[in-house]
Protein backbone atom coordinates (compact mmCIF):
# COMPACT_ATOMS: atom_id res chain seq x y z
CA UNK A 1 0.00 0.00 0.00
CA UNK A 2 1.18 3.55 -0.69
CA UNK A 3 0.34 6.59 1.34
CA UNK A 4 0.21 10.21 0.24
CA UNK A 5 1.58 13.04 2.32
CA UNK A 6 -1.16 15.49 1.42
CA UNK A 7 -4.05 13.50 2.75
CA UNK A 8 -5.58 14.48 6.05
CA UNK A 9 -6.07 10.97 7.41
CA UNK A 10 -3.30 9.43 9.49
CA UNK A 11 -1.03 7.33 7.32
CA UNK A 12 1.62 4.90 8.50
CA UNK A 13 4.72 4.45 6.37
CA UNK A 14 7.96 2.58 6.94
CA UNK A 15 11.62 3.28 6.24
CA UNK A 16 15.18 2.88 7.53
CA UNK A 17 16.14 5.62 9.97
CA UNK A 18 19.69 6.60 10.90
CA UNK A 19 19.77 8.15 14.36
CA UNK A 20 22.07 10.97 15.41
CA UNK A 21 24.36 8.44 17.07
CA UNK A 22 24.46 6.42 13.81
CA UNK A 23 22.31 3.50 14.67
CA UNK A 24 20.14 2.15 11.87
CA UNK A 25 16.56 1.46 12.87
CA UNK A 26 13.72 -0.15 10.99
CA UNK A 27 11.06 2.47 11.58
CA UNK A 28 7.44 3.26 10.90
CA UNK A 29 6.01 6.77 11.07
CA UNK A 30 2.48 7.99 11.54
CA UNK A 31 1.95 10.89 9.15
CA UNK A 32 -0.88 13.37 9.72
CA UNK A 33 -1.57 16.54 7.80
CA UNK A 34 1.92 16.80 6.41
CA UNK A 35 3.76 16.21 9.66
CA UNK A 36 5.30 13.24 11.40
CA UNK A 37 3.04 12.50 14.33
CA UNK A 38 5.02 9.55 15.67
CA UNK A 39 7.98 7.33 14.83
CA UNK A 40 8.01 3.73 16.02
CA UNK A 41 11.34 1.90 15.87
CA UNK A 42 11.06 -1.86 15.42
CA UNK A 43 11.53 -3.56 18.77
CA UNK A 44 12.07 -7.17 17.78
CA UNK A 45 14.57 -7.90 15.03
CA UNK A 46 14.26 -11.48 13.77
CA UNK A 47 17.67 -13.12 13.39
CA UNK A 48 16.88 -16.77 12.74
CA UNK A 49 15.76 -18.93 9.85
CA UNK A 50 15.74 -16.73 6.78
CA UNK A 51 16.04 -13.49 8.78
CA UNK A 52 19.26 -11.59 9.52
CA UNK A 53 18.08 -8.22 10.85
CA UNK A 54 20.06 -7.93 14.10
CA UNK A 55 23.24 -8.14 12.06
CA UNK A 56 22.49 -4.81 10.42
CA UNK A 57 19.94 -2.96 12.51
CA UNK A 58 19.48 -1.60 16.03
CA UNK A 59 16.38 -2.50 18.03
CA UNK A 60 14.11 0.28 19.23
CA UNK A 61 13.44 0.72 22.95
CA UNK A 62 10.18 2.67 23.08
CA UNK A 63 6.62 1.50 22.67
CA UNK A 64 3.92 4.17 22.72
CA UNK A 65 0.34 4.46 21.61
CA UNK A 66 -0.26 7.95 20.29
CA UNK A 67 -3.35 10.10 19.84
CA UNK A 68 -4.47 10.64 16.28
CA UNK A 69 -6.77 12.88 14.30
CA UNK A 70 -9.28 10.05 14.32
CA UNK A 71 -10.00 10.84 17.94
CA UNK A 72 -8.64 7.52 19.18
CA UNK A 73 -5.20 6.27 20.03
CA UNK A 74 -3.17 4.48 17.38
CA UNK A 75 -0.47 1.89 18.06
CA UNK A 76 2.20 1.33 15.44
CA UNK A 77 4.29 -1.82 15.14
CA UNK A 78 6.54 -3.37 12.53
CA UNK A 79 6.23 -6.99 11.39
CA UNK A 80 8.05 -9.18 13.96
CA UNK A 81 6.87 -6.88 16.77
CA UNK A 82 3.55 -8.68 16.44
CA UNK A 83 5.11 -12.07 17.04
CA UNK A 84 5.52 -10.96 20.65
CA UNK A 85 2.42 -10.90 22.82
CA UNK A 86 3.46 -7.90 24.88
CA UNK A 87 3.38 -5.49 21.94
CA UNK A 88 -0.33 -5.49 21.09
CA UNK A 89 -1.20 -5.73 24.78
CA UNK A 90 0.94 -2.77 25.84
CA UNK A 91 -0.30 -0.68 22.92
CA UNK A 92 -3.91 -1.36 23.89
CA UNK A 93 -3.24 -0.65 27.57
CA UNK A 94 -1.51 2.58 26.52
CA UNK A 95 -4.67 3.77 24.83
CA UNK A 96 -4.62 2.45 21.29
CA UNK A 97 -7.95 1.47 19.77
CA UNK A 98 -6.40 0.86 16.38
CA UNK A 99 -3.29 -1.32 16.13
CA UNK A 100 -1.37 -1.01 12.87
CA UNK A 101 1.27 -3.52 11.84
CA UNK A 102 3.39 -2.64 8.81
CA UNK A 103 4.90 -5.88 7.58
CA UNK A 104 7.25 -7.46 5.06
CA UNK A 105 6.31 -11.06 5.55
CA UNK A 106 8.12 -13.56 3.31
CA UNK A 107 5.69 -16.19 2.06
CA UNK A 108 6.69 -19.81 2.72
CA UNK A 109 5.34 -23.19 3.80
CA UNK A 110 3.34 -23.70 0.66
CA UNK A 111 0.80 -26.40 1.37
CA UNK A 112 -2.49 -27.75 0.24
CA UNK A 113 -3.57 -28.48 3.79
CA UNK A 114 -3.85 -24.85 4.83
CA UNK A 115 -6.97 -22.74 4.60
CA UNK A 116 -5.23 -20.35 2.20
CA UNK A 117 -2.50 -22.56 0.71
CA UNK A 118 0.31 -20.63 2.41
CA UNK A 119 1.46 -21.45 5.94
CA UNK A 120 2.74 -17.95 6.61
CA UNK A 121 -0.58 -16.39 5.73
CA UNK A 122 -2.49 -18.80 7.95
CA UNK A 123 -0.24 -17.94 10.88
CA UNK A 124 -0.57 -14.18 10.42
CA UNK A 125 -4.32 -14.37 9.95
CA UNK A 126 -4.65 -16.33 13.18
CA UNK A 127 -2.48 -13.83 15.06
CA UNK A 128 -4.31 -10.74 13.83
CA UNK A 129 -7.72 -12.15 14.70
CA UNK A 130 -6.50 -13.20 18.13
CA UNK A 131 -4.95 -9.81 18.91
CA UNK A 132 -8.06 -7.94 17.77
CA UNK A 133 -10.19 -10.11 20.05
CA UNK A 134 -7.90 -10.04 23.07
CA UNK A 135 -7.22 -6.29 22.89
CA UNK A 136 -10.77 -5.52 21.67
CA UNK A 137 -9.21 -3.15 19.14
CA UNK A 138 -9.13 -2.79 15.39
CA UNK A 139 -6.05 -4.45 13.93
CA UNK A 140 -4.74 -3.27 10.57
CA UNK A 141 -2.19 -5.53 8.94
CA UNK A 142 -0.42 -3.94 5.98
CA UNK A 143 1.86 -6.41 4.21
CA UNK A 144 4.33 -5.94 1.40
CA UNK A 145 3.70 -7.29 -2.10
CA UNK A 146 6.35 -8.33 -4.59
CA UNK A 147 9.39 -10.50 -5.11
CA UNK A 148 12.95 -9.84 -3.96
CA UNK A 149 15.50 -12.49 -4.95
CA UNK A 150 14.24 -15.82 -3.58
CA UNK A 151 11.59 -14.24 -1.40
CA UNK A 152 7.97 -13.52 -2.33
CA UNK A 153 5.97 -11.12 -0.19
CA UNK A 154 2.38 -12.22 -0.21
CA UNK A 155 0.25 -9.15 0.50
CA UNK A 156 -3.06 -10.22 1.97
CA UNK A 157 -3.39 -7.03 4.03
CA UNK A 158 -6.35 -7.07 6.41
CA UNK A 159 -8.52 -4.99 8.69
CA UNK A 160 -9.83 -6.97 11.65
CA UNK A 161 -12.66 -5.70 13.85
CA UNK A 162 -12.50 -5.81 17.69
CA UNK A 163 -14.71 -8.90 17.53
CA UNK A 164 -11.98 -10.76 15.64
CA UNK A 165 -13.87 -10.75 12.37
CA UNK A 166 -12.21 -9.56 9.18
CA UNK A 167 -13.70 -6.30 7.87
CA UNK A 168 -11.50 -6.34 4.82
CA UNK A 169 -9.03 -8.80 3.27
CA UNK A 170 -6.87 -7.75 0.34
CA UNK A 171 -6.04 -10.38 -2.26
CA UNK A 172 -2.75 -12.27 -2.03
CA UNK A 173 0.20 -11.09 -4.12
CA UNK A 174 -1.70 -8.09 -5.53
CA UNK A 175 -0.51 -4.57 -5.08
CA UNK A 176 -3.20 -1.94 -4.65
CA UNK A 177 -4.60 1.03 -2.75
CA UNK A 178 -7.51 -0.36 -0.75
CA UNK A 179 -10.01 1.43 1.44
CA UNK A 180 -12.19 -0.11 4.13
CA UNK A 181 -14.84 1.66 6.18
CA UNK A 182 -14.80 0.96 9.89
CA UNK A 183 -17.00 2.18 12.70
CA UNK A 184 -15.19 3.12 15.90
CA UNK A 185 -18.46 2.44 17.71
CA UNK A 186 -17.51 -1.23 17.33
CA UNK A 187 -14.66 -0.68 19.77
CA UNK A 188 -16.98 0.77 22.40
CA UNK A 189 -19.56 -1.95 21.91
CA UNK A 190 -16.96 -4.70 22.14
CA UNK A 191 -15.11 -3.24 25.12
CA UNK A 192 -18.29 -2.81 27.16
CA UNK A 193 -19.73 -6.18 26.19
CA UNK A 194 -16.42 -8.02 26.56
CA UNK A 195 -14.38 -5.99 29.05
CA UNK A 196 -11.12 -7.89 28.65
CA UNK A 197 -9.02 -4.77 28.50
CA UNK A 198 -10.73 -3.35 31.59
CA UNK A 199 -9.81 -6.53 33.46
CA UNK A 200 -6.15 -6.66 32.41
CA UNK A 201 -3.75 -6.70 35.38
CA UNK A 202 -0.72 -4.64 34.35
CA UNK A 203 0.47 -4.44 37.97
CA UNK A 204 0.49 -8.25 38.04
CA UNK A 205 2.64 -8.27 34.91
CA UNK A 206 5.05 -5.77 36.39
CA UNK A 207 5.38 -7.73 39.61
CA UNK A 208 5.82 -11.14 38.03
CA UNK A 209 8.07 -9.90 35.25
CA UNK A 210 10.24 -8.06 37.77
CA UNK A 211 10.60 -11.33 39.67
CA UNK A 212 11.47 -13.29 36.51
CA UNK A 213 14.01 -10.68 35.40
CA UNK A 214 15.71 -10.79 38.79
CA UNK A 215 15.77 -14.61 38.74
CA UNK A 216 17.17 -14.69 35.22
CA UNK A 217 19.89 -12.30 36.30
CA UNK A 218 20.73 -14.61 39.19
CA UNK A 219 19.84 -11.83 41.64
CA UNK A 220 17.05 -13.78 43.31
CA UNK A 221 16.65 -17.46 44.02
CA UNK A 222 14.15 -19.16 41.76
CA UNK A 223 11.65 -21.20 43.75
CA UNK A 224 10.15 -22.70 40.58
CA UNK A 225 13.41 -23.79 38.91
CA UNK A 226 14.61 -27.41 38.61
CA UNK A 227 16.78 -28.53 41.51
CA UNK A 228 19.91 -28.86 39.35
CA UNK A 229 19.37 -25.69 37.30
CA UNK A 230 22.16 -23.14 37.38
CA UNK A 231 21.46 -19.62 38.62
CA UNK A 232 19.56 -17.74 35.93
CA UNK A 233 18.38 -20.90 34.20
CA UNK A 234 15.03 -22.45 35.00
CA UNK A 235 15.80 -25.88 33.62
CA UNK A 236 18.49 -28.43 34.46
CA UNK A 237 20.65 -29.64 31.57
CA UNK A 238 19.18 -32.66 29.78
CA UNK A 239 20.53 -35.33 27.46
CA UNK A 240 21.12 -34.37 23.84
CA UNK A 241 18.10 -35.55 21.91
CA UNK A 242 19.33 -35.92 18.37
CA UNK A 243 22.38 -35.43 16.21
CA UNK A 244 21.89 -33.34 13.10
CA UNK A 245 22.16 -34.95 9.68
CA UNK A 246 25.71 -36.14 9.04
CA UNK A 247 26.82 -36.07 12.69
CA UNK A 248 27.48 -39.37 14.45
CA UNK A 249 25.97 -40.13 17.80
CA UNK A 250 28.61 -39.69 20.49
CA UNK A 251 28.91 -41.72 23.69
CA UNK A 252 26.14 -40.80 26.08
Amino acid sequence: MRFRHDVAVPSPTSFVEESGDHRLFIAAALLEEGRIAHVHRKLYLPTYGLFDERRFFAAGDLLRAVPSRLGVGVGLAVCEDFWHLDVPQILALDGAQILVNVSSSPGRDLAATNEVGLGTATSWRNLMRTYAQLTTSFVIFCNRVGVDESISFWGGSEVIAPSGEAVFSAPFFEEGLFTADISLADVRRERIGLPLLRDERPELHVRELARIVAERAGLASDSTADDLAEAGLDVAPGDPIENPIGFRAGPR
Partner: protein
Amino acid sequence: MTAPRPAGNATGPMTASAPPRDVDASVTALFEMPAELAIDTSIARRVIAEFIRGQLRQAGFKKTVVGLSGGIDSAVVAYLVAEAIGAERLLAVLMPYRTSSPASRSDAETVVARLGCASEVVDISLMVDAFFANDPDASSLRRGNFMARQRMAVLYDRSVTWSGLVVGTSNKTESLIGYTTLFGDSACAFNPIGDLYKSQIRQMAEALGVPEAIIRKAPSADLWPGQTDEAEADISYPLLDRLLFWRVDKRRSVDEVVAMGFERTLVERVDRMIASSEFKRQVPPIAKLGPRTAGVDYLYPRRRPGSARG
Protein backbone atom coordinates in the same frame (compact mmCIF):
# COMPACT_ATOMS: atom_id res chain seq x y z
CA MET B 1 -5.68 -21.09 19.09
CA THR B 2 -2.67 -23.00 17.82
CA ALA B 3 -0.99 -20.67 15.36
CA PRO B 4 2.21 -22.43 14.40
CA ARG B 5 5.38 -20.46 13.73
CA PRO B 6 5.91 -20.49 9.98
CA ALA B 7 9.69 -20.79 9.91
CA GLY B 8 10.38 -24.46 9.37
CA ASN B 9 7.80 -25.54 11.83
CA ALA B 10 4.56 -27.41 11.68
CA THR B 11 1.55 -26.03 9.91
CA GLY B 12 -1.76 -27.60 9.17
CA PRO B 13 -3.35 -30.79 10.38
CA MET B 14 -0.80 -33.07 8.68
CA THR B 15 1.94 -31.85 10.98
CA ALA B 16 0.30 -31.93 14.37
CA SER B 17 2.60 -33.05 17.17
CA ALA B 18 2.31 -36.76 16.40
CA PRO B 19 2.51 -37.39 12.66
CA PRO B 20 0.34 -40.27 11.49
CA ARG B 21 2.17 -43.55 11.19
CA ASP B 22 0.97 -44.15 7.67
CA VAL B 23 0.38 -41.05 5.66
CA ASP B 24 -2.19 -41.56 2.97
CA ALA B 25 -0.65 -41.34 -0.42
CA SER B 26 -3.25 -40.44 -2.98
CA VAL B 27 -2.70 -42.14 -6.30
CA THR B 28 -3.88 -39.92 -9.10
CA ALA B 29 -4.37 -41.27 -12.56
CA LEU B 30 -0.83 -40.26 -13.49
CA PHE B 31 1.38 -40.62 -10.44
CA GLU B 32 1.58 -41.34 -6.70
CA MET B 33 1.27 -38.14 -4.66
CA PRO B 34 2.26 -38.29 -0.96
CA ALA B 35 -0.47 -36.36 0.87
CA GLU B 36 1.85 -34.31 3.07
CA LEU B 37 3.67 -32.97 0.01
CA ALA B 38 0.62 -31.68 -1.83
CA ILE B 39 0.78 -27.97 -2.55
CA ASP B 40 -1.60 -25.33 -3.80
CA THR B 41 -0.30 -25.23 -7.37
CA SER B 42 -2.08 -21.99 -8.25
CA ILE B 43 -0.17 -20.15 -5.51
CA ALA B 44 3.07 -21.85 -6.52
CA ARG B 45 2.56 -20.79 -10.16
CA ARG B 46 1.84 -17.24 -9.13
CA VAL B 47 4.93 -16.99 -6.89
CA ILE B 48 7.16 -18.61 -9.52
CA ALA B 49 5.90 -16.37 -12.35
CA GLU B 50 6.67 -13.25 -10.33
CA PHE B 51 10.04 -14.73 -9.34
CA ILE B 52 10.96 -15.32 -13.00
CA ARG B 53 9.91 -11.81 -14.01
CA GLY B 54 11.78 -10.33 -11.05
CA GLN B 55 14.97 -12.20 -11.86
CA LEU B 56 14.90 -10.99 -15.47
CA ARG B 57 14.10 -7.43 -14.44
CA GLN B 58 16.92 -7.15 -11.94
CA ALA B 59 19.44 -8.57 -14.40
CA GLY B 60 18.17 -6.44 -17.29
CA PHE B 61 17.19 -9.37 -19.50
CA LYS B 62 13.97 -10.02 -21.36
CA LYS B 63 14.50 -13.60 -22.54
CA THR B 64 15.42 -17.01 -21.21
CA VAL B 65 17.19 -20.20 -22.32
CA VAL B 66 16.11 -23.63 -21.08
CA GLY B 67 17.82 -26.93 -21.81
CA LEU B 68 14.94 -29.24 -22.68
CA SER B 69 15.74 -32.91 -22.05
CA GLY B 70 12.32 -34.43 -22.64
CA GLY B 71 11.99 -35.05 -18.91
CA ILE B 72 9.47 -33.62 -16.52
CA ASP B 73 11.68 -31.07 -14.73
CA SER B 74 12.77 -29.11 -17.79
CA ALA B 75 9.28 -29.43 -19.30
CA VAL B 76 7.74 -27.89 -16.17
CA VAL B 77 10.32 -25.09 -16.23
CA ALA B 78 9.56 -24.37 -19.90
CA TYR B 79 5.83 -24.21 -19.16
CA LEU B 80 6.41 -21.95 -16.13
CA VAL B 81 8.64 -19.59 -18.13
CA ALA B 82 6.09 -19.46 -20.95
CA GLU B 83 3.38 -18.69 -18.39
CA ALA B 84 5.48 -15.96 -16.77
CA ILE B 85 6.86 -14.09 -19.78
CA GLY B 86 5.35 -15.67 -22.90
CA ALA B 87 6.67 -18.54 -25.02
CA GLU B 88 8.09 -16.12 -27.60
CA ARG B 89 10.74 -15.10 -25.07
CA LEU B 90 11.90 -18.68 -24.47
CA LEU B 91 14.57 -20.57 -26.37
CA ALA B 92 14.41 -24.32 -25.77
CA VAL B 93 17.71 -26.06 -26.53
CA LEU B 94 17.65 -29.81 -27.15
CA MET B 95 21.09 -31.33 -26.63
CA PRO B 96 21.00 -35.03 -27.43
CA TYR B 97 24.02 -37.34 -27.27
CA ARG B 98 24.14 -40.22 -29.74
CA THR B 99 22.98 -42.72 -27.12
CA SER B 100 20.18 -40.51 -25.79
CA SER B 101 16.75 -42.07 -25.89
CA PRO B 102 14.75 -41.18 -29.04
CA ALA B 103 11.68 -40.88 -26.79
CA SER B 104 13.41 -38.07 -24.87
CA ARG B 105 13.92 -36.19 -28.11
CA SER B 106 10.34 -36.61 -29.28
CA ASP B 107 8.93 -35.66 -25.86
CA ALA B 108 11.03 -32.50 -25.90
CA GLU B 109 9.76 -31.72 -29.40
CA THR B 110 6.19 -32.17 -28.19
CA VAL B 111 6.80 -29.54 -25.49
CA VAL B 112 8.25 -27.14 -28.09
CA ALA B 113 5.26 -27.70 -30.38
CA ARG B 114 2.72 -27.28 -27.57
CA LEU B 115 4.31 -24.06 -26.29
CA GLY B 116 5.23 -22.65 -29.68
CA CYS B 117 8.60 -21.44 -28.41
CA ALA B 118 11.83 -21.07 -30.36
CA SER B 119 13.99 -24.17 -30.31
CA GLU B 120 17.32 -25.44 -31.44
CA VAL B 121 18.96 -28.85 -31.52
CA VAL B 122 22.64 -28.98 -30.59
CA ASP B 123 24.01 -32.52 -30.80
CA ILE B 124 26.79 -32.86 -28.21
CA SER B 125 28.09 -36.20 -29.55
CA LEU B 126 31.02 -34.72 -31.49
CA MET B 127 32.24 -32.59 -28.59
CA VAL B 128 31.99 -35.40 -26.07
CA ASP B 129 33.43 -38.11 -28.32
CA ALA B 130 36.35 -35.86 -29.36
CA PHE B 131 37.28 -35.38 -25.73
CA PHE B 132 37.16 -39.09 -24.91
CA ALA B 133 38.68 -40.24 -28.25
CA ASN B 134 42.01 -41.08 -26.63
CA ASP B 135 40.41 -42.29 -23.42
CA PRO B 136 38.03 -45.08 -24.46
CA ASP B 137 37.94 -46.61 -20.98
CA ALA B 138 36.54 -43.49 -19.34
CA SER B 139 33.91 -44.45 -16.77
CA SER B 140 30.25 -43.72 -17.28
CA LEU B 141 30.47 -41.35 -14.30
CA ARG B 142 33.11 -39.25 -16.07
CA ARG B 143 31.20 -39.36 -19.34
CA GLY B 144 27.94 -38.43 -17.67
CA ASN B 145 29.51 -35.52 -15.82
CA PHE B 146 31.25 -34.33 -18.97
CA MET B 147 28.01 -34.45 -20.97
CA ALA B 148 26.21 -32.44 -18.29
CA ARG B 149 28.98 -29.84 -18.40
CA GLN B 150 28.99 -29.71 -22.20
CA ARG B 151 25.28 -28.99 -22.08
CA MET B 152 25.94 -26.23 -19.56
CA ALA B 153 28.57 -24.75 -21.90
CA VAL B 154 26.12 -24.83 -24.82
CA LEU B 155 23.39 -23.15 -22.76
CA TYR B 156 25.74 -20.38 -21.63
CA ASP B 157 26.84 -19.83 -25.22
CA ARG B 158 23.21 -19.53 -26.28
CA SER B 159 22.67 -17.18 -23.35
CA VAL B 160 24.86 -14.75 -25.34
CA THR B 161 23.48 -15.39 -28.83
CA TRP B 162 19.84 -15.36 -27.68
CA SER B 163 20.39 -12.64 -25.02
CA GLY B 164 18.61 -14.76 -22.45
CA LEU B 165 19.25 -15.99 -18.92
CA VAL B 166 19.77 -19.71 -18.37
CA VAL B 167 16.95 -21.06 -16.23
CA GLY B 168 17.80 -23.90 -13.86
CA THR B 169 15.88 -27.18 -13.90
CA SER B 170 17.19 -28.99 -10.80
CA ASN B 171 14.59 -30.08 -8.28
CA LYS B 172 14.83 -30.21 -4.49
CA THR B 173 15.00 -34.01 -4.30
CA GLU B 174 18.08 -34.39 -6.50
CA SER B 175 19.70 -31.33 -4.96
CA LEU B 176 19.32 -32.69 -1.40
CA ILE B 177 20.76 -36.11 -2.24
CA GLY B 178 23.43 -34.63 -4.52
CA TYR B 179 22.19 -36.35 -7.68
CA THR B 180 23.51 -33.51 -9.86
CA THR B 181 26.70 -32.60 -11.69
CA LEU B 182 28.43 -29.61 -10.14
CA PHE B 183 28.70 -26.82 -12.75
CA GLY B 184 26.72 -29.07 -15.09
CA ASP B 185 22.96 -29.51 -14.89
CA SER B 186 22.91 -27.49 -11.66
CA ALA B 187 24.44 -24.40 -13.31
CA CYS B 188 21.97 -21.61 -14.00
CA ALA B 189 21.19 -17.92 -13.55
CA PHE B 190 18.19 -18.73 -11.36
CA ASN B 191 16.09 -21.77 -10.52
CA PRO B 192 12.30 -21.59 -10.24
CA ILE B 193 11.76 -25.25 -9.18
CA GLY B 194 14.69 -25.84 -6.82
CA ASP B 195 12.42 -25.85 -3.74
CA LEU B 196 9.97 -28.41 -5.17
CA TYR B 197 10.30 -32.14 -4.60
CA LYS B 198 9.87 -34.47 -7.56
CA SER B 199 6.35 -35.36 -6.41
CA GLN B 200 5.48 -31.67 -6.29
CA ILE B 201 6.96 -31.18 -9.77
CA ARG B 202 4.58 -33.91 -10.96
CA GLN B 203 1.69 -32.10 -9.31
CA MET B 204 2.75 -28.87 -11.03
CA ALA B 205 3.15 -30.68 -14.36
CA GLU B 206 -0.40 -31.97 -14.19
CA ALA B 207 -1.73 -28.50 -13.31
CA LEU B 208 0.26 -26.88 -16.12
CA GLY B 209 -0.92 -29.37 -18.74
CA VAL B 210 2.46 -30.95 -19.45
CA PRO B 211 1.96 -33.92 -21.83
CA GLU B 212 0.93 -37.04 -19.93
CA ALA B 213 3.65 -39.20 -21.46
CA ILE B 214 6.25 -36.94 -19.81
CA ILE B 215 4.53 -37.14 -16.42
CA ARG B 216 4.14 -40.92 -16.57
CA LYS B 217 7.61 -41.99 -17.66
CA ALA B 218 10.34 -43.03 -15.23
CA PRO B 219 12.66 -40.10 -14.46
CA SER B 220 16.11 -40.55 -15.99
CA ALA B 221 19.30 -38.54 -16.38
CA ASP B 222 19.49 -40.34 -19.78
CA LEU B 223 23.28 -40.44 -19.57
CA TRP B 224 23.34 -44.05 -20.73
CA PRO B 225 20.64 -46.28 -22.26
CA GLY B 226 18.12 -47.67 -19.79
CA GLN B 227 19.29 -45.49 -16.89
CA THR B 228 16.61 -44.45 -14.40
CA ASP B 229 17.01 -42.28 -11.30
CA GLU B 230 15.07 -44.64 -9.08
CA ALA B 231 17.08 -47.71 -10.09
CA GLU B 232 20.34 -45.84 -9.61
CA ALA B 233 19.42 -44.49 -6.18
CA ASP B 234 17.52 -47.70 -5.31
CA ILE B 235 14.51 -45.85 -3.90
CA SER B 236 11.22 -44.58 -5.28
CA TYR B 237 10.64 -40.85 -5.57
CA PRO B 238 7.45 -40.72 -3.46
CA LEU B 239 9.24 -42.55 -0.61
CA LEU B 240 12.41 -40.45 -0.94
CA ASP B 241 10.44 -37.20 -1.14
CA ARG B 242 8.49 -38.05 1.99
CA LEU B 243 11.62 -39.02 3.89
CA LEU B 244 13.41 -35.79 2.87
CA PHE B 245 10.36 -33.73 3.79
CA TRP B 246 10.16 -35.14 7.32
CA ARG B 247 13.93 -35.22 7.92
CA VAL B 248 14.84 -31.84 6.39
CA ASP B 249 11.79 -29.58 6.23
CA LYS B 250 10.09 -30.86 9.37
CA ARG B 251 13.29 -31.61 11.31
CA ARG B 252 12.18 -35.05 12.48
CA SER B 253 14.88 -37.19 14.13
CA VAL B 254 16.02 -40.56 12.80
CA ASP B 255 14.08 -42.31 15.57
CA GLU B 256 10.97 -40.30 14.80
CA VAL B 257 10.97 -41.12 11.07
CA VAL B 258 11.72 -44.77 11.85
CA ALA B 259 8.68 -44.74 14.16
CA MET B 260 6.70 -43.35 11.21
CA GLY B 261 7.57 -46.47 9.22
CA PHE B 262 10.75 -45.60 7.30
CA GLU B 263 13.48 -48.29 7.35
CA ARG B 264 16.42 -47.28 9.51
CA THR B 265 19.02 -48.39 6.97
CA LEU B 266 17.31 -46.28 4.31
CA VAL B 267 17.13 -43.26 6.61
CA GLU B 268 20.82 -43.57 7.44
CA ARG B 269 21.77 -43.99 3.78
CA VAL B 270 19.80 -40.92 2.72
CA ASP B 271 21.29 -38.94 5.63
CA ARG B 272 24.75 -39.77 4.31
CA MET B 273 23.77 -38.68 0.79
CA ILE B 274 22.55 -35.34 2.13
CA ALA B 275 25.63 -34.69 4.27
CA SER B 276 28.16 -35.77 1.65
CA SER B 277 26.66 -33.53 -1.04
CA GLU B 278 26.58 -30.35 1.04
CA PHE B 279 29.36 -28.89 -1.12
CA LYS B 280 27.14 -29.07 -4.19
CA ARG B 281 24.52 -26.79 -2.66
CA GLN B 282 26.84 -23.97 -1.64
CA VAL B 283 29.04 -21.50 -3.45
CA PRO B 284 32.74 -22.37 -3.11
CA PRO B 285 34.30 -20.73 -0.04
CA ILE B 286 36.90 -17.99 -0.48
CA ALA B 287 39.91 -17.84 1.89
CA LYS B 288 39.28 -14.74 4.00
CA LEU B 289 42.27 -12.36 3.79
CA GLY B 290 41.15 -8.80 3.10
CA PRO B 291 38.89 -6.40 4.97
CA ARG B 292 35.76 -7.30 3.00
CA THR B 293 35.22 -10.62 1.30
CA ALA B 294 32.45 -11.65 -1.06
CA GLY B 295 29.96 -13.93 0.66
CA VAL B 296 31.55 -13.43 4.09
CA ASP B 297 31.25 -9.79 5.06
CA TYR B 298 30.75 -8.14 1.68
CA LEU B 299 27.03 -8.77 1.49
CA TYR B 300 24.79 -7.10 -1.01
CA PRO B 301 21.55 -8.15 -2.59
CA ARG B 302 22.01 -9.17 -6.22
CA ARG B 303 19.27 -6.69 -6.97
CA ARG B 304 20.86 -3.30 -6.31
CA PRO B 305 21.23 -0.06 -8.22
CA GLY B 306 23.27 -0.87 -11.32
CA SER B 307 22.58 -4.61 -11.22
CA ALA B 308 20.59 -4.54 -14.46
CA ARG B 309 22.62 -5.00 -17.63
CA GLY B 310 22.89 -2.14 -20.14
